[in-house]
């Protein structure tokens, strides 16, 4: 294949790229057009070896592509993503135009069709002002800044505040764990599974509190939380949702546990849970009641969970 002149190469690249962008079939550009308007516009190209090299590379790339590949590029271009902009800009004139600006700026050579501008101090001052404006604006990205303000408390926090008065409680020590039992709790129904069991009466509504210890991972945290969710009529959650809906708390002795609050407003049921993952076993503290009773009894249950000692 005969080597084309640089200006012709740029013309071919330009036109093939236009076809890529509009998705039409690849055609060989007619040679008689190479000396037309386009080559006139890019007549600075032969003076720029770096640009020659780039244009040659683009043409080689284009010639190495099949029609299917070109069509794929066309599809990318229509999707409007960055690669398309790259293809469009490089090949449809954006890049040559940038080079032209650069070339003109560096050489300060006259540009065809320029305004009839007279050099005067006011214009120079304005250009200086514009440059200062450009620099100032360029530095206007989001800066690190610190603000302080006050905001109203969310309604839920206010409700919790009202019920957070802790009544006189008693310390309990079983063979396995120790904890503080809130005064309002009474002994609950016993079971071979439960380490301890309590009941609470919240405005006539009953709450069942149980503490269960299971060996090993006991099915895992997520499976157990989803089991509880099923008991109150809620659907399963993913690990992400569990992470965002659970609170990582520390007991008074500094041991970590996970607190979950599962409330089904529609069904009116709720479970509050404290889950203690320890080496070789898991401990589950569960508060099952109506949603209304759970909201009022939450403060006591959190106090209880925070008091657990191993």
């Amino acid at each position: 294949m005969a080597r084309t002149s640089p200006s012709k190469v740029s013309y071919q690249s330009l036109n093939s790229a236009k076809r890529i962008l509009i998705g039409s079939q690849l055609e060989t550009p007619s040679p008689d057009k190479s000396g037309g308007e386009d080559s006139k516009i890019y007549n600075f190209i032969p003076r720029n070896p770096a640009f020659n090299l780039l244009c040659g590379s683009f043409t080689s790339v284009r010639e190495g592509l099949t029609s299917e590949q070109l069509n794929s590029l066309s599809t990318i271009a229509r999707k409007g993503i960055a690669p398309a902009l790259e293809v469009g800009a490089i090949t449809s004139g954006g890049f040559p135009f940038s080079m032209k600006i650069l070339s003109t700026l560096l050489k300060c050579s006259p540009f065809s069709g320029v305004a009839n501008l007279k050099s005067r101090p006011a214009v120079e001052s304005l250009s200086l002002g514009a440059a200062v404006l450009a620099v100032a604006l360029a530095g206007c990205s989001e800066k690190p800044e610190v603000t302080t303000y006050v905001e109203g408390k969310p309604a839920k926090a206010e409700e919790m505040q009202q019920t957070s008065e802790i009544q006189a409680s008693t310390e309990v020590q079983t063979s396995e764990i120790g904890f503080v039992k809130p005064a309002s709790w009474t002994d609950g129904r016993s079971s071979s599974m439960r380490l301890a069991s309590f009941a609470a009466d919240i405005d006539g509504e009953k709450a069942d509190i149980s503490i269960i210890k299971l060996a090993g991972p006991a099915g895992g945290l997520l499976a157990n939380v989803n089991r509880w969710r099923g008991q109150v009529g809620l659907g399963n959650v993913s690990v992400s949702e569990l992470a965002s809906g659970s609170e990582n708390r520390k007991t008074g002795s500094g041991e970590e546990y996970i607190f979950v609050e599962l409330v089904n407003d529609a069904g009116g049921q709720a479970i509050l849970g404290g889950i203690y993952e320890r080496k070789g076993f898991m401990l589950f503290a569960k508060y099952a009641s109506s949603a209304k009773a759970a909201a009022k009894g939450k403060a006591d249950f959190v106090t209880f969970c925070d008091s657990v000692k191993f």
Partner: protein
Amino acid sequence: MKALLKFISSPALFFYTAIWLLVILVFGTLAQKQMGIYEAQEVYFSSWVIWASVLPLPGGRLTMLVIFINLVLKLAGDIPPKKLRIGTFISHCGGLLLLLGGFITAYFSTEGGMWIPEGGKSGQFTDFNKIELAFIDESNPEHNEVTAFSGGYIKKGAEIQHDMFPGTITVVDYVRNGEIIKREGAAPSDYVGPASRFDVKSIDLEEHAQANRNTMLLKFEGFGPEDGVYLIFKFSSIPQKVKIGEKEYAVEIRQKHYDLPFEIELLDFKMEEHPGTRVARSYASEVNVLTDGVKRRVEISMNEPLRKGNYTFYQSSFDNRSPVEATFLQVVENAGRNFPYISSIIMCFGLLIHMVLQIPRMINRDRLKKLPLPEMEERKEVAS
């Protein structure tokens, strides 16, 4: 210098930059589908440089700045304007004012929203796009005191220092949209709280920036027993708590909050439905605007926003399923909101003058056409 000024003020430069602006506009608009509206705006329109892989291309902001400078210098060169060019001169001034308004809007406007329950009031709104890292002191029973660190701090490697901190917080990692996954294997010994059990995986950005789950790993050093690496992520219903000094702070990553210089109280939310359906036909919020204790009763409806100072409040959404109805107002703070109106009037005025000034020439041209050819050439010569 003269040559450079000639080039910068040339109509050719304006012509090419305007075409380039159109190219950006097309690609930026198309990209909104894949990148999301905010992201596409940031990449194509609000950027100085568009990086097409390794190739830097002029971004929308740079292109408009070039057009602005081009117009300024062109106008400066045209002072004093010729009598017949006064109309175009005025129109160009209008165009310049429009661009200036665009810059003011780009740098000094904020867009967000606020929920107000019926009977409640609010003096704050949250940004749709920008986020903040908030340390919330909940110890005051009346209100929360917030110290917020802007988006400039929310990047990998950033160090956060403040008078309230005994040590330094380092952003170990930052993910713009993350999925929380269960951690495989044991976490490093200094990872505490959810960070010890959960990890974060970067996923594609959402169409709307506020739907992204921004996630950070923050390393606290010099905080005594609270030292460690914490996982902080948006939409966490139970925020991470950290004790700093004597106070306990909830640490949240959330949409940036702004204070309004007044409060809005929702008196009543009204909705009309299409007959026989649950589809809203119109909805409106009856509100009180509270400024320094003075109440002003206003109705904000779908096509009638409330304008106060640089703020405009649009009726955007509502919640009528909860026990208490609530309204959602879109808030736009824009110091340059009057520029498009003023500049359009100026441009129309300029074009009108230009048209009027051209009328005698048009009449003369018609007369010339009717004259015999030699006489017409003669008159043309005289006119020129």
